[in-house]
């Protein structure tokens, strides 16, 4: 069981790395904003598996923290440090 979980963890980490390569290479800023989102799910999965493999139950607390802080970082990325968020109004996009 431990070997299987370790292998799954390594696989998910490799997927995370590939995803990061693709995102960080992306041509625009919008592509890079996805990085925090990617780590927010992939990193949490990896951390939960790591907690099960190494027998450290407190890893779920770290996963909880990362979930919250990755969301916070994603929002900061979308705002790009500016006070305004033009693209946010519910009816402002042309999807009628």
């Amino acid at each position, binding site marked *: 069981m431990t*070997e299987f979980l*370790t*292998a799954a*963890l*390594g696989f998910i*980490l*490799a997927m*995370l*790395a590939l995803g*990061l390569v693709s995102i*960080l290479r992306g041509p625009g*800023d919008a592509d*890079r*904003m996805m*990085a*925090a989102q990617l*780590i*927010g799910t992939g*990193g949490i999965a*990896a*951390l939960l598996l*790591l*907690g099960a*493999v*190494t027998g*450290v139950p*407190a*890893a779920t*607390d*770290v996963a*909880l*923290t*990362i979930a*919250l*802080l*990755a*969301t*916070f*970082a994603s*929002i*900061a*990325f979308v*705002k*790009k*440090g*500016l*006070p*305004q*968020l033009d693209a*946010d*109004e*519910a009816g*402002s996009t042309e999807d009628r």
Partner: protein
Amino acid sequence: MTVATILEMVLAAVVLALGVWTIAARETFAATVGYVAYGLLVPLIWVRLDAVDVALTEAAIGGGLGGVLLLGAAARLRPSEPATAAETPGKIVRLSAAGASVMIAAALAAAVLLLPDPAPTLAPAAVANASATGLANPVTNVLMAFRAMDTMLEKVVLLLAIVGVWSLASDRAWGGRPGPRHQAGPHGVLVFLARLLPPVGIVVGIYILWTGANHPGGAFQGGSILAAMWLLVIMAGLTDTPAVGGRWLRLVLIAGPGVFLIVGLGGLCFGPAFLAYPLPPHAKPLILIIEVAMVSTIAVTLGLLLAGAPERSDQG
């Protein structure tokens, strides 16, 4: 070569590559994204090394709050970026900087790799003396009891940092509100998230503070999460940054080191030494009171540090 070793190599390679990319990135925004990604991945290494308290702090500070700080700085620096780009240091300066960095990294690596095995450490003594306070988490014992002086002085350092940031305000904005007024569409997605997430975040932050007594956690990590939730509400425009001249705000800012100092002086008056706690049944409530004061101070201080120097006078 076991699966665990391969895992560790993959993890180390990913983090190192991310670090190199962050330094080599051309645009500021890209580098900031790389830095936040790095800060959110290093906790995996810390958990692998069984240092969960450090992992919590790294995720909170390095991942979330540090990245937001850099983004705000990058946004402010954008008007002056062409001028700074024209001033790139010459090749000799950059080569010497690279050389100095490599030598320091080599010295650190040598120091770590040449440690005697088993490395000299006080960790077993800290674990063995947990009965001094009745708390089971050895890290909390060290922070709050054995090296409590350091923790108290760190909170004073936070206070000095805030004073430093505030001193950047212009005369007109002195005592006013930090940063611009954030705005977001009142029926938009951001406001929805800023209404739904902070209650969960506050519960998690208090939980991490509470569980720090016996499991990894503590006041600093909990305070960082609370600060992040407060900043989220500010970034969605649901509330404005507080005026830094406010009396209640300043009271909260000094509450952490203040309560610590009072307990320390109590130890001097009623006990054997400064910051000496009473015997185990009574030590834990005292430590809890100190931690509650500290978490409020840390949350407000970190939030204000990220909000920046006052820019708008209080009437505006």
